[in-house]
């Protein structure tokens, strides 16, 4: 694709988090991967991150109320 859609103002920053961060996250919110919101593997925003199923994506949202807020999504196949 000629234009990079990731830089669009509607698209917040997406990043893959490491295994250790994953553990911390689950502990902090006492949750597990299957309870997190999902993101499809072929989502245009994570096309360049080379992710596999089960990875956690950290989304850095610009929020009107909180400045920046973090949101986590688990990668799903279809």
């Amino acid at each position, binding site marked *: 694709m000629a234009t990079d859609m990731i830089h*669009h103002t*509607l698209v917040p920053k997406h990043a893959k988090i490491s295994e250790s961060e994953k553990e911390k996250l689950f502990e902090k919110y006492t949750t597990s991967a299957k309870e997190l*919101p999902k*993101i*499809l593997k072929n989502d245009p*925003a994570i096309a360049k991150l080379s992710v596999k199923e089960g990875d956690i994506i950290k989304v850095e949202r610009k929020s009107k109320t*909180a400045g*920046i807020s973090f949101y986590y999504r688990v990668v799903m196949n279809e």
Partner: protein
Amino acid sequence: MKKEHEELIESYADKLSLSVLDEVKITVPADITKEKLSKIMEEIVAAYESAKVNPGECVGLVSAESIGEPGTQMTLNTFHFAGVSEMNVTTGLPRIIEIFDAQKEIKTPTMEIYLESKYNNLDAVKKFAAKIKETLLGELVEEYSLNIFEQTLKLTLNKGLLKDYDLTGKEIIKNFKTKMKNFNLDSEDNTIIFTHKGKAEEIKELYNLKEKVKDVKIKGIKGIKQVLPVKRGGEYVILTSGTNLKEVLELDEVDSQRTFCNDIYEIYEVLGIEAARQAIINEVYKVIQAQGLNIDIRHIMLVADIMCANGIVKGVTRYGVVSEKASVLARASFETPIKHLINAALEGEVDNLTSVVENVMINQPVPLGTGLPGLVTKMK
């Protein structure tokens, strides 16, 4: 501000939100002592914690009421701005329903195209607008003439329009070359002549050709039916009727960071689920503000989060988020109860009664507020 003060404030990053920290940094006087600052920070944390929504608070219900109540005061119909040089778009309640139901075909798809700074002058904008507008051959034709004996179809094109679009008959022919198998093409000035190759007895084929030819795209981007350049705060923005986000974003002239459309599904397909969520919030908020209503944005954010939780955009309908509910009774209470109950019976579905509606139905305490906590024994 001293560095140690800044560090102290930063150390609260996991307890407070970023906007609060920024506010503290701006408002705290520079000559404050470290002890006082840390005391202030503790106070802020306490205030922040008490302002948080309590566990068990039914936020969804509050959102539903907060959006529903002012929703009754919204205009029920689309406004028609006759004579105003803005385009007619769906607003008010129909638009809200459209967004929350995540309808795939929206009534008035539009785009707002922002341009790169070097194309931001009147001439370039006009030229670009003409370039992206989808032009069909039918719009250019002044006269069709069928000749049955020679099996030809002759199109006479409007000279003025040809000049406006900077086209000639020969260029238009190029669009056809690959598609026309049974016809020979020829062009002179502003006419195009189709001649049937074989000896067709019937005139039907020529008639079909005439209808088909009308819808052939000559230039522009598919889907962009109308363009309207407007000036907005010192720069030109092109409003369109009809959308094609993907192809427009790839054009060089377009500012591919700010250009967007009002079709949530299209945004989802081109930019991803997070962009779709943001678009839902923006679009709903736009409608609410245009109506002069005041709904806290958190309610809209909550609905948008629910709609986008599964990686695809789901409407608040019985096919969308409601179908995700774990309880049969909760689904049956929304719409088409018989269908849900019969299917559940056939599949032998189990209802664990973990949520609100099903417990209301069978007259039990609902897991909300003080009804939520229960005794748990930790088995280890």
